[in-house]
């Protein structure tokens, strides 16, 4: 199993380690998932995301190379700005979801899912290496997420970067955090304000310790993959492998907002245009359980007549809402708020209700 540069630090903290796509990762620390979830919603959670992949595109035609691969419009990115997007196969099926950072007009960074790194690297090289240099820097790169409403307040004393001036999806490519060279991006996967901080892998533990201390000063703490999953589920952010895969398109997944069909060409554009024109037949729906029961990945979803219409792709408790929530693909006509559906929870038919938008939305500060 692969280990992140923070492996020893997790063991010292008493983390429960699990195999996550071939990586030994902390699922939680001794306080438990719900405690870490609440700490992130209320103050700051610090997450080891060193396992994620970093692939750099460099050269005069780097923008063209990245644009070929992703559905969002690369031309709208300025230096120091990032966006969320997906990369598709020629079929329109999703290869991965990722964040693209424009460091300069000739240097883009993509951050991809750990479990997809090898597949993505092969695909990116196959499709883009003729246009620019494509380099996988995952092994040399450390990445720590610092997420929560108190993130800026806790991080500001450690850096010269004016965090107030950093907008969502903005980043500073070269700065320092108490002596560690880093990049600070205002991105995340929790539904909270926060930062993702890159550094050299060899500096990751020093950065981690600094960030843990900073988090503790505002009531925050380290948080594991378990909380990362409940946080992203509450915010209704999809997880590749559960909610997204090569058999789903971004339009079906509710990611139409990152698909710019009228901009520059990209791989998969034609089938996506056709799907949009014809109407999307199924959609990734969100629903709240209205009876006692937890819908989990793979459970059948039934319509009001008891006919199976899809399967749960992600589900579990939403600790902030104190409800159980889930997502799954259903025929588009069922994707109306208030529609009653049922989930077959291990043989027990449990009612649920379709809702629109994130289950949890942070307040505007």
């Amino acid at each position, binding site marked *: 199993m692969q280990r992140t540069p923070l492996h020893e630090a997790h063991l010292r903290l008493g983390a*429960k380690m699990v195999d996550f796509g071939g990586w030994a990762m902390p*699922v*939680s620390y001794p306080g*438990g*998932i*719900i*405690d870490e979830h609440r700490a992130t919603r209320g103050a700051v959670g610090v997450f080891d995301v060193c396992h994620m992949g970093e692939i750099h595109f460099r050269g005069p035609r780097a923008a063209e190379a990245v644009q070929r691969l992703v559905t969002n419009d690369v031309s709208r990115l300025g230096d120091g700005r990032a966006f969320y997007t997906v990369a598709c196969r020629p079929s329109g099926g999703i290869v991965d979801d990722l964040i693209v950072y424009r460091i300069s007009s000739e240097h883009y960074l993509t951050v991809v899912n750990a479990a997809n790194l090898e597949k993505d690297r092969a695909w990116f090289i196959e499709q883009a290496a003729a246009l620019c240099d494509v380099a996988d820097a995952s092994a040399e790169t450390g990445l720590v997420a610092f997420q929560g409403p108190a993130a800026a307040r806790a991080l500001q004393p450690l850096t010269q970067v004016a965090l107030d001036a950093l907008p969502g999806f903005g980043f500073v490519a070269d700065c320092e955090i108490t002596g560690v060279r880093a990049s600070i991006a205002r991105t995340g996967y929790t539904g909270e304000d926060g930062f993702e901080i890159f550094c050299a892998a060899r500096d990751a533990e020093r950065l981690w310790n600094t960030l843990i201390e900073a988090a503790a000063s505002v009531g925050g703490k380290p948080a594991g993959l*378990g909380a990362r*999953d*409940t946080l992203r589920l509450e915010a209704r952010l999809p997880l590749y492998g559960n909610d997204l895969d090569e058999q789903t398109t971004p339009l079906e997944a509710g990611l139409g907002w990152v698909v710019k069909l009228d901009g520059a060409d990209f791989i998969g554009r034609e089938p996506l245009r056709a799907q949009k024109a014809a109407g999307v037949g199924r959609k990734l729906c969100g629903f709240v359980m209205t009876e*006692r*029961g*937890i819908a*989990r990945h793979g459970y059948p979803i039934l319509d009001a007549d008891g006919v199976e219409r899809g399967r749960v792709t992600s589900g*579990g*408790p939403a*600790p902030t809402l104190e409800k*159980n929530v889930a997502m799954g693909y259903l025929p588009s006509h069922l994707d109306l708020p208030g529609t009653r559906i049922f989930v077959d929870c*291990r043989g027990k038919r449990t009612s649920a209700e379709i809702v629109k938008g994130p289950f949890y939305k942070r307040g505007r500060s």
Partner: protein
Amino acid sequence: MSAQYPDDLYYTKDHEWARLEERDGQKLATIGVTRFAVEQLGDVTQVDLPKEGETVKRADVFGSVESVKAVSDLFAPLSGKVVKVNSPLADSPEYVNEDPYDEGWMIQLAVSDVKEIDGLLDANAYQAFLREQGE
């Protein structure tokens, strides 16, 4: 906080415990899950249990525990009729995490076959089993 594996309980390899007592000549077994099980589960968010009056059979599923991450079956350490259910767990499943051997108990059975007790592990044997499993 109760002991990790109290000496007065019996255990199964499925990580349930049973506390035996006798009342009016009837053997009663109070049943729950062990500290080890709780540590594996993480935060418990829902407990599904049988109703009073139902019968359960040794080694059969009698209920389930939902944690944040997963759902796990509960296996009966002994056969018998359910005489009591810890109904507060419906609203306070966290008792299972906080106090698995007392407030977190799940059901009480009127034991129908006392010979089955011989098949249970004592605290030492259970801990030896955990060590064998590399825990």
